[in-house]
């Protein structure tokens, strides 16, 4: 069985490593696709540039850092929600702080969840794990996602 991947968009190498460890510890079976900025993530999602050869299908969930080079998380979120193909993909915003205006804007743009990365590592692992389980496993995948398509072909 092939699970939809989790798309992780994170520019900071240490956050990247710690997030990957947290995902690993949460024992999710999903693959994790790593992109390092908003533009690359958009290339992946729209299968352009280096990702034009990838198989079709949207990720189970996008873990999106707020501050990113080239195109920041809010901008990418806006494009995802504006795209007919992508608008139903769950997006979890990961950020360093709960600065109010970012939060308000992220929800206005239709983010599914918003996580302030805790300083305490076990807390962080717990948060990532909960999110992964909720969005990648428990959440009913939206139409057009890989799982639905696969289920249909299996039937």
């Amino acid at each position, binding site marked *: 069985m092939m699970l939809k991947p989790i798309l992780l968009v994170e520019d900071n190498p240490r956050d990247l490593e*710690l997030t990957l460890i947290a995902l690993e510890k949460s024992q999710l079976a999903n693959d994790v696709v790593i992109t390092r900025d908003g533009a690359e993530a958009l290339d992946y999602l729209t299968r352009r540039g280096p990702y034009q050869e990838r198989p079709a299908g949207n990720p189970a969930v996008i873990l999106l850092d707020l501050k990113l080079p080239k195109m920041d998380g*809010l901008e990418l979120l806006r494009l995802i929600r504006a795209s007919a193909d992508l608008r139903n993909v769950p997006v979890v915003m990961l950020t360093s*702080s709960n600065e109010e205006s970012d939060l308000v804007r992220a929800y206005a743009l239709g983010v599914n969840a918003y996580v302030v990365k*805790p*300083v305490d590592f076990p807390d*962080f692992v717990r948060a990532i794990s909960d999110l992964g389980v909720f969005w990648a496993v428990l959440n009913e995948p939206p139409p057009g996602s890989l799982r639905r398509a696969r289920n249909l072909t299996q039937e």
Partner: protein
Amino acid sequence: MPSPRSAPITKVTDSCASEPIHIPGSIQPHGFLFVLDRANGTILQASESVLRHLGIPASALLGAKLAELVRDPDGEFPQRLEAATQAEHAPFHLGSLTFLSGSGDFDLVVHRSGEAILAEFEPAAPASQLAGLGDFVGRAQQCETVDDLCELAVEEIKKLTGYGRVVAYEFNSEGHGRVNAERHDPGYVSFRGLHFPASDIPEQARRLYLVNRLRCIPDARYEPSPLVPRDNPLTGAPTDLSFAELRSISPSHLRYMEAMGTMASMSISLVVQGRLWGMISCHHAQPRTVPLAVRTQTNLLAQIVSLQIEARRAQGEAARRHELQHLTGMLLSAMAEHDNVPAGLISVPQALLEFARAGGAAVVHSGECLTVGQTPERDDILALCARLPGMAKSGLFHTRDLPAVAPEFASVRKQACGVLAISISELHPNYVLWFRPEWIRSINWAGRGPIPDAEAAARATERTFRPWPQEIRGQSLPWEPWELDSAAELRTAITGVVLRKAEELAGLADELGRTNQELEAFSYSVSHDLRAPLRHIAGYAELLQEYEGAQLSARASRYLANIGDSARFAGRLVDALLTFSQMGRSALKPTQVNLTQTMEQIRRELAPDLQGREVDWVSHELPEVYADAGYIHLALRNLLSNAIKYTRDREPAVIEVGAHPQGGGHVIYVRDNGVGFDMKYAGKLFGVFQRLHRMEDFEGTGIGLANVRRIVERHGGRVWAEGVPDRGATFYLFLPGADSGAAAAPSASHKNSRS
């Protein structure tokens, strides 16, 4: 006793004042007058006195051409007459001439009035009677004071004219004349220093004195010589004799002369800056004729005196204006130095007083009243300021007699009979006021004081000129025009200063706004950029322990644990700081908050901290307040959390929560029997990162009470605390009532969206 101030000259309506003295229809008989038709030079009217001088009855001359009656060898008389009467109301001495009939020379003065030419003839004086003015101008210039100048003038005029008494007097602002110079022969009563009330010279006489500056009456007992016919046949109206030297005298003036014991008189106007400044009056006990040439000289001399007075006044005024400018400069620089209008003005008390030659001054600003010198009581000044908006014109008010315009201030007459006030704010009742005391002086009226009404004047026919003393009260020294000008200028300058200050404040507010934005950007980046590395330190320390813990020494493990603890604590500090800064920036959303419910909720939230603890709760009824529910929750939670924390070694801990109303709001308190604090550190309790206990004793970020204070102050309230070491502490917070408006006030800061 009549009050001098109640007799403004314009209100005089006695018989003199209403008498049409410019059209008496007759002249004095020491000369004769023809009214000529300007078109053809024929005689329209003639005075009966022509019979006495030329031996021809007036009626016989009507219709004759004047040019045909006089000797005119050159035949140029008609041209000269026409040239001399081009301008209206400008008497011109056409020289002396002789008539074909009759004998003797006559001085002829002509002037035009409408389409009529008035030709006045007087017997000419022998040339030997003329004396030169000598070096009068030079000596006049050397006089130190105006009074000295007038002394010189009356002396000179007495010599020129031979009158028995010559006096000069100066009119004050109410029109009363003070005799400031006099020369008299033995046998004449001295008038020196006497005041002649304004009512002595009716208003229409003053107007005539202004235009026709010399008036001569050779014999008060003269028989008026009527014009024949009485009215000008071309106009059907009496001929206007305003500019006629021979014009007949008002009967009331003749009575006046009689009372003075004067048979002959001459008066010359002193006109300064277009105003009747004063008069020179000449009196003689017997009839006395002064030839035209002498009168012309006297007139010239009086004009020199007028010009000299004008020059001196202009000089004095210029000097005073210069001084006022200097004082204005001092006041303005003092205000600039103090960065504050009231403090600046009061810092230079001498300049402030001297500016208005005042005995006292006050600056009323934002309900405060600062005074220097002799002033009324503060409450009187504030009451006066409350009246000013209705009395001031263009932001300026002045009076010499405050009780006359505002009788309720009669009691402050001693310090503030005269008031000059300027408004120094367009929006607020802020004023600078100067006070002058009542000016009490004794004067000697000439025979009587001013007559307040017509009936009294009519009755007062018996007139003497003996000194009649009176104490003059009820007015301050007058506010001079230049003083009022300078006050208006000062007002403009101060309101300019105030405006500039407002602009500076606005600029400051802009800058503050920018600084706030920078601060916001700063805390944003602190929260993001500082938090990330702390997270990394904590994360890697955790992972190191997890994956490599088995190989680490106990000491290394402990160090690693400390690294993790420190990073996590630093993370909490950053979070707390960010919350603190957000609290100062975000807008309050006040609603009715039931504090009893809030407190119960907080206790539920804090229940985990109470595990294994014995706590006696003493809960009193708490009020409803109008506040931001979330922030008030945070503040009370902080206090309760502290109470739990600092009582943890108490068995049992006692925590009391209560409230009582105060000043329209509520005081809420949280009391515990914990470790307490020393009151000498009470001031530090509510500061950011201020801790009164060691970290290992009581953990915490040191920002909780700063948050409480910020929340309560944002609601317009205040916080304070009482404590005794080891005996417990009580924290109070006061929240004002909803009607105070503080809680509902919009946040001063504003948030900018960030991209």
